[in-house]
């Protein structure tokens, strides 16, 4: 396969991949989705929801948290203070519960803390960057880039 054919193949697959991401976003993988809730909160009053969001603030008694995903901002009530004892603004949580509109509120059945705050975030991003570097170094130690041939070649081979 000549380089230009492979480049054409890559362009086609990139377009298909982009199309797939469009289809993924356009399909209701979640019912209701967070954008559904943000677009028409009243229509979803009383719905069971699962929401992923960034913590905007934790209320002083630690029984309520305000989360946002950029489109939907909601106050989460009925939170178990023990679950969120270490939670800071900027952390990331998931909430399962009952949605109420005006103002947007979720009465939580269950809260899961994914990232408590800055130190968790640094840990996850730091180790992830390290993982990415490890894979790239392992790859470039055994393969080299043949720019003119637009391909990877095993090191030690022409």
């Amino acid at each position, binding site marked *: 396969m000549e380089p230009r054919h492979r480049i054409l193949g890559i362009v086609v697959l990139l377009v298909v991949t982009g199309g797939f*991401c469009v289809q*993924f*976003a356009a399909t209701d993988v979640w019912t209701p989705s967070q954008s559904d809730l943000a677009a028409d909160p009243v229509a979803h009053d009383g719905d069971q929801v699962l929401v992923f969001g960034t913590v905007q603030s934790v209320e002083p008694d630690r029984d309520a948290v305000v989360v946002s995903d950029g489109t939907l901002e909601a106050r989460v009530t009925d939170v178990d203070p023990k679950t969120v004892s270490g939670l800071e603004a900027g952390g990331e949580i998931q909430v399962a519960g009952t949605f109420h509109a005006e103002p947007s509120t979720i009465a939580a059945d269950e809260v899961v803390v994914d990232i408590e705050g800055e130190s968790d975030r640094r840990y996850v991003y730091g180790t992830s960057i390290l993982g990415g570097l490890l894979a790239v170094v392992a790859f470039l130690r055994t393969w080299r880039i043949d720019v003119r041939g637009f391909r990877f070649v095993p090191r030690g081979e022409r």
Partner: protein
Amino acid sequence: MAELLTHVLLAYAVFTVLGWYVEWIDDRWIAVGMVGSILPELNRLALVVPSGWVSSVLGVPFAWDGLHTVVGTALLSGIGALLFGSSTHRRRAFLVLFAGGLSHLIVDLPQRYADGKLLTNEYLFPLTTWRPPTPGWYVSADRWVLLLAVGVTLAILLLDRYRSWPSDAGSASTGTVPDRGQP
């Protein structure tokens, strides 16, 4: 998601073990598998170019999370495979990238979710909306996950060394043959 270091280490371990049984899986292909284990995480491009921006530029809905799926991983593996010159390399690259990507999704699967169910509706999109219960073993910031991955990797690394000892010993003794002949 678990952090990427866990994914890359576990891919290293998995492909090292596969290499014991599949003759062509050597260091080169283990490295390709490690790269494969990163592919689903390319949904993090959203941190650089938010899905909302892409959506407003294209004028249609768009979500990078489409990459964190079996189909998205297969498409990315196809793109990666086309960066290899020979047809044998392309075939192997696709298989290994895709298997590496699947290992990522499998490791991510049993995480804790607030409604107690797996995210199979996302990972298997558009095949099913089925969501069985999650065992809820971990969240991404749990430190023990990486410790376990490091432990598994070290154990496999040691076993791998142990497996290659007999042949090393053989070549070492061959190497000493001329010396033995000398007084």
